[in-house]
């Protein structure tokens, strides 16, 4: 099967803080990868490099064959113009922990914004798409509501629908349920599970170990800027080989 995401030797520092220390990662098409790890381990930074929200200092990130943010000429990388980076990003949906819906636009406008202005698709095509996606996340009746009038769980489902509106080849979730009240976590996880069963390639950072066990094809444990261990959920969650993985899991399980 072909590789959807391919990271090679990715390094990233913020000032003197070395956040990513040479990460290699492959995610095949249709695969669901769950990343777990303590806070400050670089999970979020890693995810953000996979749609070029963070530029890498060293190494390469490829998504669906595109080298993100750069064009390779011989052994040199030339930074791409912003227009090209934006085009690459429309293949990748990103769901934030804090939803980041546009509060001054209705739910429908939130969903239609990117297909209309980033992909320049006609309104006649985008409008039914928005309706379809809202129905898919169970919010067909909220199209004309403003985000602030919705519950956290509903807002995150809108955010997922908004990411899907680009019809991306890859979905990235950065702790999608961490900002939610406990009783709202389930409805969001159900939507993500549904997408996973539908064959969408996705990378999910989460602390929901039960979710990882149920949905993930593989689970990666990250610590101190490196992927320490990666394997099928049964093996990594129940039978970790590394001491650090064991220590982390004993705290969250």
């Amino acid at each position, binding site marked *: 099967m072909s590789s959807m995401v391919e990271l090679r030797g990715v390094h990233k520092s913020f000032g003197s803080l070395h956040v990513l220390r040479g990460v290699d990662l492959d995610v095949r098409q249709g695969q669901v990868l769950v990343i777990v790890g303590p806070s400050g381990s670089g999970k979020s930074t890693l995810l953000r490099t996979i749609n070029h929200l963070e530029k890498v200092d060293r190494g390469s990130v490829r998504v669906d064959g595109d080298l993100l943010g750069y064009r390779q000429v011989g052994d040199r990388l030339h930074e791409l113009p912003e227009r090209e980076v*934006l085009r690459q990003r429309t293949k990748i949906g990103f769901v934030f922990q*804090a939803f*980041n819906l*546009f509060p*001054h*636009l209705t739910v429908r406008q939130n969903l239609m*914004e*990117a297909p209309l202005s980033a992909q320049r698709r006609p309104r006649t095509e985008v409008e039914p798409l928005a309706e379809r996606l809202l129905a898919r996340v169970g919010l067909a009746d909220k199209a004309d509501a403003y985000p602030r009038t919705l519950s956290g769980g509903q807002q995150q489902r809108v955010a997922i629908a908004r990411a899907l509106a680009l019809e991306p080849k890859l979905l990235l979730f950065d702790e999608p349920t961490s900002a939610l009240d406990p009783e709202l976590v389930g409805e969001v996880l159900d939507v993500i599970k549904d997408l996973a069963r539908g064959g969408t390639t996705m990378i999910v950072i989460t602390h929901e170990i039960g979710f990882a066990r149920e949905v993930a094809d593989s689970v990666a444990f990250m610590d101190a800027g490196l992927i320490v261990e990666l394997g099928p959920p049964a093996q990594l969650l129940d039978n970790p080989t590394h001491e650090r993985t064991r220590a982390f899991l004993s705290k969250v399980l």
Partner: protein
Amino acid sequence: MTLPEVQSPVHQDAERPLEVVTARHPLRWLAAACVLVVLAMVASALVTNPAWEWDVVGQYLFAPSVVRSVLLTLELTVLGIGLGFALGTVLALMRLSANRLLSSVAWGYVWLFRSVPLILQLLFWYNLALLYPRLSVGVPFGPAFFDFGTMDLIGPLTAAVLGLALHQAAYAAEIVRGGLLSVDHGQREAAAALGLPPARRLFRIILPQAMRTIVPNAGNEIIGLVKGTSVVYIMALPELFYQVQVIYNRNGRVMALLLVAAIWYLILTTILSIVQHYVERFYGRGRA
């Protein structure tokens, strides 16, 4: 261990609902009475004193020369605010630019034009011909393509608009910058992650949200400028304040004509306050 029996007064008489008696505020009533008396005194002082010459006020309030001067005041305000905020927005974006030269120049502009009094700046533009008798457009230190006489190009009106707009731009730049910074960083990230083009991000996502912070401050500035236009009287431009001075110098009815000006400034600022209310409501949509 047994707990003592607690008799709740609420449960004593279940069939009869309890009546709520609101607290009395005698001091509040006293204060209100005092204010009423003061208001009556002010009204009486305004109405009964013939020196206010209300008939003269009525006579001049809608005099053609006064109405024309009100229109000029409005024109100066609109041009000053319009050009000022257009330039101010550009300066704010320059200030936030990653390019050090752009941000330094914007900082320098704000520093300079906030530091020089408006009245001094107006006189400076008005007298620009003393410094540069001719203005030309061309290559710096090189040949010129166009060439104008400064006196022909910058009359009193142009000098006034230039002065007001450049002064206003310095304040507008800070207001717009503050507004842009007030928008949650996540909004920028979400817009970038969705691949929205830069101009679309600014005009569709960031600025409309920044407007919630910008509008109240801009309202202050606009109302300030309506009155601030009165300083251009030093250039003998017949705006409202200059015009009433011309009239009272001729007929000696100083207080009545100052009152005419005051009433017009009140009308203009009242209209602007109402407009501001609706603009704020528009940009506050989607917020509880």
